[in-house]
């Protein structure tokens, strides 16, 4: 309970806080023969919205549980503020956490659920009521104080869970796929809200998700996790436009993938042999001429035109194909094009001003510097 006091002070004074709120040093966690977390280093800054993005089984939830103290790492250290909390139990760490399945206490009302952390801290009645009112209005839960969790909608339950996670003003808030159980509309609404709370409170959020759109919408910085290690960590625009590995390129955004052979490098571009054709693509890291490479390019980086077109060939790659289908999505449309070898690629662009018919021959083209290339 001592740490609760210090935290309050920092909220009030706003000084003497180290810039790094959370530091993980070479964390390793094994379950039997499986290494769930493999030597992870991470620093979370003050007021940062950080997303841990990865497919299920990538170790992201295990990392969150290590930060919360629900799992002990086999190696490495966890630091919150300037305290080494590696050996501390969850109740001495003063972090908040929000879960995928809400996990509200079913025998307590909304208000009782929300003030639970304050009661555990033995906060005075007046302070407790004041904070409850603050959390209720922040989460727009007014009038629902005496409802039991099963009398609340999914979105309301999630807001109660958020209020419970935030009310003790923890050093950081951990969110474990908090929106996965909500329907689509509510989810996009909550995405915006959660980001708003985070910016208002200037509290670091660590947000675990397998949903790349969620991670891209909400966070400032993203770590893409795969097999217990970070594939890439950086600003979300960096992750999106400059994927460091083939896995990131496949996992973030929607990409077409071309597998070919690296022929040669000239003039800052690589020539890739693909299906008896040649493309100019960005140079992969540690290029090995003759090696197999993967070229990934996002749907929206491709352009489509009716064949024959008048597009200038210089500085652009061109592929001929026939239009298979157009999937109208509102702001954009996905054009599915069958190439000569029978494979299909997808182009995303604005649907207006392009009245293509089915089975019409088309040209897919893009500037040579677009996309990302990796050795495989």
């Amino acid at each position, binding site marked *: *309970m001592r740490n*609760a006091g210090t935290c309050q002070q920092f909220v009030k004074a706003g000084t003497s806080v180290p810039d790094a709120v959370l530091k993980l040093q070479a964390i390793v966690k094994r379950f039997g023969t499986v290494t769930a977390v493999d030597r992870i280093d991470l620093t979370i800054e003050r007021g940062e919205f950080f997303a841990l993005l990865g497919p299920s089984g990538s170790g992201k939830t295990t990392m969150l549980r290590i930060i*919360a*103290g*629900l799992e002990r790492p086999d190696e490495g250290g966890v630091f919150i503020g300037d305290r080494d909390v590696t050996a501390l*139990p*969850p*109740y001495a*760490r*003063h*972090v*908040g*956490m929000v*879960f995928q*399945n809400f*996990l509200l*206490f*079913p*025998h307590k009302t909304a208000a009782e659920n929300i003030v*639970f*952390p304050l009661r*555990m*801290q033995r906060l005075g009645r007046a302070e407790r009521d004041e904070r409850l009112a603050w959390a209720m209005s922040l989460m727009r839960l007014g009038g629902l104080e005496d409802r*039991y*969790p*099963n*009398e609340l909608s999914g979105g309301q339950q999630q807001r109660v869970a958020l209020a*419970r996670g935030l009310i*003790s003003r923890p050093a950081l808030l951990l969110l474990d796929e908090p929106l996965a159980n909500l329907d689509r509309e509510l989810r996009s609404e909550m995405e915006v809200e959660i980001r708003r709370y985070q910016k208002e409170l200037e509290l670091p959020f660590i947000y675990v998700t397998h949903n790349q759109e969620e991670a891209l919408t909400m966070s400032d910085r993203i770590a893409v996790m795969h097999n217990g290690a970070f594939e890439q960590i950086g600003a979300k625009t960096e992750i999106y436009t400059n994927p460091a590995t083939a896995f990131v390129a496949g996992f973030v955004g929607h990409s077409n993938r071309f597998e070919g052979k690296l022929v040669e490098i000239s003039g800052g571009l690589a020539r890739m042999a693909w299906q008896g054709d040649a493309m100019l693509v960005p140079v992969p890291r540690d290029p090995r001429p003759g090696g197999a490479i993967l070229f990934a390019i996002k749907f929206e980086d491709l352009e489509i035109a009716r064949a024959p077109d008048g597009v200038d060939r210089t500085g652009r790659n061109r592929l001929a194909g026939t239009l298979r289908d157009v999937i109208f999505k509102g702001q954009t449309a996905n054009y599915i094009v069958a190439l000569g070898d029978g494979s299909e690629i997808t182009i995303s662009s604005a649907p207006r001003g392009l009245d293509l018919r089915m089975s019409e021959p088309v040209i897919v083209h893009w500037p040579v510097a677009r996309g990302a290339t990796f050795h495989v």
Partner: protein
Amino acid sequence: MARGSVSKGGLGTSAMTGIRSSLARRGQFRFACLAGPGALFIVVALLLPLLAIVVFSFWRTESYELYADWNLDNYRVLLGEPAYRIFFLRSLAMAAAVSFVCLVFAWPIAYFIAKHGGRYRLLLVLLLAAPFFTGVILRITALQGLLGPIGLVNMALAELGIGPVGMLMYTPLAAGLGLFYLFVPFMATAIYLSLANFNFELLEVAKINGARPWRAFVEITWPLNAIGTAIGLVLVFIPCLASALTQRFLGGPNATSLGMSLAQQFGETGTWALGSAMGVFLFLASLAGILVVRRTIDLKRAGFTGALGA
């Protein structure tokens, strides 16, 4: 509601209601077929004898014969005679003590099985029922072998040089031990069944929110499993209150219970009417026990919000 919508529709009202009532009749018939036999058995085997006992308790016995002249003498004797009062209080104290001890012992057992039993959960629960593989008399006899003057406990004590404890067998303590041994599986099973449906993740939530393990138990585990505990208490308390055999074989003269005395009325002394009054009295006491347990549990607060909500 259904009726309202039909009359609003106007058309074919009588035909609709005809189909509806025939459907309802068929449903009732099916319900009667399914629930009937069980209900009949309960009425014949349980309610009728109970009723008979209530009736007998207002009659009179003389030289092993029952006479149907209505009176309250049996209850007067039962409440007035100090011996019976002592028997009853003894039974009550014994039942309460045994229930409490069972509770204290059963909770950790049940908790361990539910939390750490893994795939052996079912096996471990079945092991709880192991004492029931033999009859009650055999189990009591086994306890006699354990607690008797040259029983296992005394021999072990002698080996350790503490010397045999003479006063182990034929004491209220021995009777209490016997009852505890007989009934702790009921308590453990009831609590286990409750814990089997308990979401242990809620404890992680409590801990992250600052609750130490003991506090988390008091705030979350205990209230959310109060139903299991209550069922366990009822399952132990009521048979203990009426128990006769255990006290008779293990308890000695200072453990005579109301149940023992009751058995005597129907056996040796042949005073059926007084025995019936004792039975009614025990029944009411059990009922009171259940009501007390029921009163202490707010179903909503026991996590039963799902069934009662909205």
